């Protein structure tokens, strides 16, 4: 395991922000750390980087205990926490050169990073004049500068345009597949990372509600029957009176948990026989975003 936390708990005053968190992040994975705003994601990341002192539980990174091996572990981590922390009075390139100076990285690597995140045109412009997306790209370049084994990114897609999100996704996939890196990436939107994540951890109110591969998550994704009908409210009430569970009603559709093909036929016949006009009826897979919402809301 690259990251292994056990019973990690953190309180801000009386308020528990992270509760008994046990994360397992495998080598070579892209671990999507998901949760709504305020769920405890950034606090967890700050604990992983030793910015916050551990109150309860333990953190092992690369198999070593974090607090007693702080410098050795941090030398193999590149991170981007919340909004990118960059010196606004320096140019993009100077920000990278300053970090290269501190970490004794050759200047050549700075140019490679500028190329990698497509900041060539603005490398000599003050970072204070950068757009949010450019700042984010510079933040990613800073995180990757030392060629770390583990990359920890907190909401890195904030401010990126769709093109930028695609580029970052491809970059992270290539870093894990071709270079054996491990990526731990937090987001409040599942859709943003479901296409690249190999593993997912879902957190809300400090609790880890789900942890596993994307496939594990999909198996929890139960299909439903979508019925398009003229009068959804009456039809939904009619189905309920006939002991059929209705999971959702919208202006045009009713959703019923899928049981079998026979069930679809039965519902169709029942509605038709009682004067409802069914425009369409079909089995539908719930999208992961709804599943994510369901997991976090049921907590």
């Amino acid at each position: 395991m690259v990251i292994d936390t056990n019973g990690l708990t953190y309180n801000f005053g009386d308020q528990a922000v992270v509760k008994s968190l046990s994360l397992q992040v495998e080598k070579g994975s892209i671990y999507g750390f998901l949760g709504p705003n305020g769920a405890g994601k950034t606090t967890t990341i700050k604990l992983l980087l030793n910015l916050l002192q551990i109150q309860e539980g333990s953190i092992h990174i690369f198999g070593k205990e974090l607090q007693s091996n702080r410098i050795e572990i941090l030398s193999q981590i590149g991170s981007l926490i919340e909004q990118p922390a960059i010196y606004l009075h320096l140019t993009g390139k100077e920000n990278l050169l300053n970090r290269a100076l501190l970490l004794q990285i050759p200047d050549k690597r700075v140019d490679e990073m500028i190329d990698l995140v497509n900041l060539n045109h603005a490398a000599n412009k003050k970072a204070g004049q950068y757009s949010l997306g450019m700042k984010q790209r510079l933040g990613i370049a800073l995180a990757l500068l030392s060629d770390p084994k583990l990359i920890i990114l907190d909401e890195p897609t904030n401010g990126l345009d769709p093109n930028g999100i695609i580029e970052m996704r491809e970059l992270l996939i290539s870093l894990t597949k071709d270079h054996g890196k491990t990526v731990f990436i937090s987001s409040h939107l599942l859709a943003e990372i479901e296409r690249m994540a190999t593993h997912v951890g879902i957190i809300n109110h400090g609790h880890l509600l789900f942890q596993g591969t994307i496939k594990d998550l999909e198996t929890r994704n139960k299909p439903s029957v979508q019925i398009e009908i003229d009068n959804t409210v009456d039809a939904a009430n009619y189905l309920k009176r006939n002991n059929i569970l209705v999971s959702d009603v919208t202006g045009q559709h009713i959703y019923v948990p899928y049981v079998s093909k026979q069930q679809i036929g039965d519902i169709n016949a029942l509605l038709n026989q009682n004067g409802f006009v069914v425009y369409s009826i079909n089995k539908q897979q719930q999208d992961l975003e709804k599943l994510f919402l369901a997991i976090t809301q049921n907590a």
Partner: protein
Amino acid sequence: MKALILSIRSEFYKSRKTAGFWSVVILPLFLCLVLFINFLSNNNAVGTPSMLLWIQFAGTIFGAMGTLLLPMLVVFTAYSVNNIEHKSDTWKTLFSLPISKFSIYAAKYIYAMFIILICLMLFVPFTVGFGNLLGLLKPQLNFGDYSMINILLKMYFKLFLSSLGILSIQFILSLLFRDFLKPMGIGFVATMAGVILASDHLVYAYLFPYAQQMLAASEMPQPHGQHLAGGSLPAITIELFTKEIYASLITASVIFFAGYFIVLKKSVK
């Protein structure tokens, strides 16, 4: 040690384009220039003997710097070294780098100390340079054959040593508080208290860090001192390590290490 040196170099790299850095040059230049213009535009000092004239010229600059400007320079320098990180929200990045927290903390402190030292030492060439320029532009002023360089070097170095106690206090305040008003307010009120304590000649005033630079400055040769009357000009001796300097160095060391333990235990927001 290597990390500490790299961190100091990084501090220089980061701050070389900021106002805090350039104030190091501008402050002594401005102060010496103002006094230069003052001496140039009036004839009060015409006829004063060379040594007295130098003491009058250098002492006025030194007095202005030593009483109120130095504590304010320390407050501002301690603030600007830390504000670079507050403003850019970079504490979290700095403390997540594979560098010991001591190196980061000590590098900033040493850099602030270096800035103050450079600023104070720049007063020496500027004072001497402007003094000689005055002699050239206004030959009635007899700056000619007296050299104050060694005395000035000692005076300003002593002033530097006396400022270290304040630096440690202001440094940790600026590191902990993001907004300027808290360290500035505390620094200003404490400086005023220091001025009162020092000018009242209280026995234990030398123990109060904000009075130390004032006490160090007050022991310097005065341009119109009584001992200079009657035309006899005694040699000037500067005792470097006086009790307020020891007090300043002890305060600086204790607060420096106490500050480090605060940083060590502090969570980075």
